[in-house]
């Protein structure tokens, strides 16, 4: 009990909301307390939290104060004879009424803030956020830009073979980029299981439910990088699907979109050329590490029965298995954790990763898949 009181006191005396920047790691504003965040709503949520917290501490001080005083004052050695009273309607009514008043006082600002959060006015930027096991996909609606965002922390750091970086587990290959000072709406859904998209500094946490759409929004005031994580248990790599949001100026945001479009163009152009096996294997290894190795494992050994082995998979390596192999990568397997990548990886990526899987870790199919083949299979759409 005393340790509780002690820790509570330390916490109260700590300059609240002030970042304690010593040591490693990035803070969401504070290591002790909820972050104040960088939006009007996040500040409001933070102050609401501090108000309720203060009220709860005040209640605790009064209640525990009376309790401990009674324990000390009326201990056996001090008070041989106990009193006889055992009820009082007036007192009972009083301590039913007072909490009601306190609760109403808490509910009023909470209701006001909640109504603000449920604002459904138009937004300038709409992002479709889709949860995948175990990555996020961001699609700028009306902009023709979409990409996956994967954990970029190297496996060596997770396995303690390398010094962990300050942004350990909170860093991605491609962050979500949004403009500052603009209402950005997030539409959330999921490809497989329920995920939850959370960025503490934006005070946005919303579940991504397969088949259903949810929404949330933010208006970030300061440029910067804001980090978060998936908050709903979503399977094996739940801890390894962070969110990274980069808030930039309106100009930079437009540049970012233009650059993304150009990148997609270049990618498309490269699909018409003939790739050498080495090129495909090199690219395939990268794609495999990002998209496949979490389940099928770095050496293709899989985690049966949920995630089948690819190394030494006879059905797959046979020449006749090529078609099926490509289709599985393109469309996934319904009713399992295997997603389809047709919509999300480029034809070159798919050609490369299929080539890699067929020729790595002792697999010896020997065949090479060209991006063109993939495009033909997709009806020339991509």
């Amino acid at each position: 009990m005393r340790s509780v009181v002690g820790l509570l006191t330390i916490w109260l005396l700590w300059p609240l909301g002030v970042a304690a920047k010593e040591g490693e790691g990035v803070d969401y504003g504070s290591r002790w307390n909820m972050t104040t965040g960088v939006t009007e709503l996040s500040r409001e949520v933070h102050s609401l939290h501090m108000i309720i917290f203060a009220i709860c501490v005040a209640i605790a001080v009064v209640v525990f104060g009376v309790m401990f005083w009674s324990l000390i004052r009326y201990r056996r050695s001090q008070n041989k004879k106990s009193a006889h009273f055992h009820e009082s309607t007036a007192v009972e009514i009083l301590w039913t009424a007072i909490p009601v008043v306190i609760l109403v006082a808490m509910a009023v600002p909470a209701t006001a803030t909640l109504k603000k959060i449920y604002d459904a006015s138009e937004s300038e930027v709409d992002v479709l956020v889709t949860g995948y096991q175990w990555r996020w996909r961001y699609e700028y609606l009306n902009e023709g830009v979409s990409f996956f965002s994967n954990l970029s922390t190297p496996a060596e750091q997770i396995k303690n073979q390398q010094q962990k970086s300050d942004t350990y587990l909170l860093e991605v290959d491609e962050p979500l980029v949004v403009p500052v000072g603009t209402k950005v709406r997030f539409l959330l859904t999921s490809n497989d299981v329920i995920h939850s998209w959370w960025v503490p500094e934006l005070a946005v946490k919303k579940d991504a439910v397969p088949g259903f759409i949810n929404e949330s929004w933010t208006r970030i005031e300061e440029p910067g990088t804001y980090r978060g994580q998936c908050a709903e248990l979503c399977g094996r790599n739940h801890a390894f699907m962070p969110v990274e949001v980069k808030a930039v100026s309106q100009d930079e945001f437009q540049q970012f979109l233009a650059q993304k479009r150009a990148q997609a163009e270049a990618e498309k152009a490269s699909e018409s050329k003939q790739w050498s096996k080495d090129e495909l294997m090199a690219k395939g290894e990268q794609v495999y590490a990002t998209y496949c190795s979490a389940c099928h494992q770095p050496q293709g050994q899989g985690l049966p029965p949920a995630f089948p082995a690819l190394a030494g998979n006879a059905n797959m390596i046979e020449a006749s298995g090529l078609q099926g192999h490509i289709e599985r990568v393109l469309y996934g397997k319904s009713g399992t954790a295997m997603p389809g990548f047709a919509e999300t990886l480029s034809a070159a990526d798919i050609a490369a990763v299929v080539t890699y899987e067929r020729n790595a870790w002792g697999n010896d199919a020997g065949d090479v898949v060209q991006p063109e083949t993939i495009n033909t299979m997709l009806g020339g759409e991509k």
Partner: protein
Amino acid sequence: MSEQQRGVRKTLWQLSGLLVLMVIFTIALVPLYDVFCEVTGLNGKPRRVDDAALQAALSRSQQRPLQMQFVTRVGQGLPVQFRSQQAAQRPVVGGRNQTHFTFENQSDTDLLVRTVPSISPPEASPHILKIECFCFQEMVLKAGEKKQVGLMYLVGAKLPDHVAAVTLSYTVYPVADAPAVAEEASL
């Protein structure tokens, strides 16, 4: 003693009754939930429209800015391309609105699919009434077929004023029993 045992027996009967009631209640919760969702818009389940609702919604058409955003998604393991003709439109509140979607079966097998709708924010859901929609029944997509389907919907005049942007999402899923291409290739 025997009176006590009669009492025990009576309690047993009563509790068994309560148990049966709770079991029935649990089973009833599934359809009840659907009704509840339709009424409150919980979970963005869109409403099927009947004449009365249609008339009520049409009662006064109004000019107000409303953005209707369409989101299309394809479920795991389905070789289908599914696009909305328009990414967004500005519908008439209290009037009929129309848009189109295209499905393309990219495989060489016929597919049986079902499209699951969802509306956000949930407050808007009871006010988006679909008159003609592809989402209520299963649909066959022949091998290589490209199919255009229409959606006619109505935005009820009672849509709360603070709702200025509505998202209608569709996810197309394979119907489980249908022979999907992905199943044939056994990896």
